[in-house]
């Protein structure tokens, strides 16, 4: 078993509200995990801790050094007064040189135009969500974390999303999806987050 992420005794509280209570989780390479639970149960908090956006109060987080993380956390925020290309180009070029063909192809699959002259400000919630998914996977990241990825997507885009996820599974990516709407992409683990604790479905 090739461990890529390990959370040990992670605790996170917001004031008196303990969202994550001493949780342990080990994620292996190629795991495809579905984390579910009611609104406000701490799914987003858990993903934010894994991505490093939020510090845990207690516990340790281990991420394999060679792994790269792509993530879509809650409502993706882009530069509203810039185009889709300006946004994605900047993010891609932070670490690598942008593969325009690949990003254009991803945009086309989601019926977005990479060379659209309109500012992102004029995009709908669904279009921004698609951009969020694209930015999370475009750089060939090895670990993909998606928080409510199908929120605001139409039926056709949900099918495109499922197809892309299945391609990523074939490419041996590690995928963690937190959502309360179940969309089957072929998970090998299902975990419920309830009252700050994780319960793995058998």
């Amino acid at each position, binding site marked *: 078993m090739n461990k890529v992420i390990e959370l040990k005794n992670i605790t996170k509280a917001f004031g008196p509200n303990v969202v994550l209570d001493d949780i342990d989780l080990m994620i292996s390479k190629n795991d495809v995990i579905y984390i579910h639970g009611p609104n406000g149960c701490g799914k987003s908090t858990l993903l934010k801790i894994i991505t490093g956006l939020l510090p845990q109060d207690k516990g340790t987080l281990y991420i394999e050094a060679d792994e790269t*993380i792509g993530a879509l956390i809650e409502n993706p925020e882009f*530069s509203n*007064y*810039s185009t889709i290309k300006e946004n994605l180009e*900047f993010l891609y070029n*932070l670490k690598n040189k942008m593969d325009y063909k690949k990003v254009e192809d991803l945009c086309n699959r989601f019926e977005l135009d990479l060379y659209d002259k309109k500012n992102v400000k004029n995009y709908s919630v669904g279009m921004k969500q698609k951009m969020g998914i694209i930015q999370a996977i475009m750089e060939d990241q090895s670990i993909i974390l998606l928080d409510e990825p199908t929120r605001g997507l139409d039926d056709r885009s949900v099918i495109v999303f499922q197809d892309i996820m299945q391609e990523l599974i074939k490419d041996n990516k590690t995928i963690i999806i937190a959502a309360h709407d179940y969309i089957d992409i072929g998970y090998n683990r299902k975990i419920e987050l309830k009252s700050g604790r994780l319960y793995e479905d058998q």
Partner: protein
Amino acid sequence: MRINRLVILSLIYLLVYIVLFAQFHFDPKMLIDFIQLDSSLFMHTITVQIEFIGLQIFKFCLINMYIDFYIQLKEMIDIRKGNYRSILFKQIMICALIIMLPDILLIRGISGVIRVILNILVFTVLYIVQLTSKNKIVFATSPLIYCVLLIFINQSTI
């Protein structure tokens, strides 16, 4: 391209100076005097006072329009383990140099050099304070504090 946005904002800034230059009947000396106004500002007409203070506030607004791009993408930069602070600082320095270009072009002697260096330093520090502070009062007063400090710098480096 981000460079396009920088060019557009620079052209807007240039336009403001062209309007000021026209207002001073294309007399370079009057424009230089205006840029380097010290405490004598308060002996000028209210229009000149408003223009001078307005120009300093405009500098902050112009940078905000540019830097906003990086602020909105902060979370995604952090996820990619990009150095957000370093990216932001580099962009602020580029903007500060563009904003100070008229002052740089008008450098006269050692005191002029000191004046420009102090001006860039004060502007950068105050802009970073404004950016990092979540306090609305700090956000609103930073350009005014810069204005007061600029008058002080101009006064002491004549």
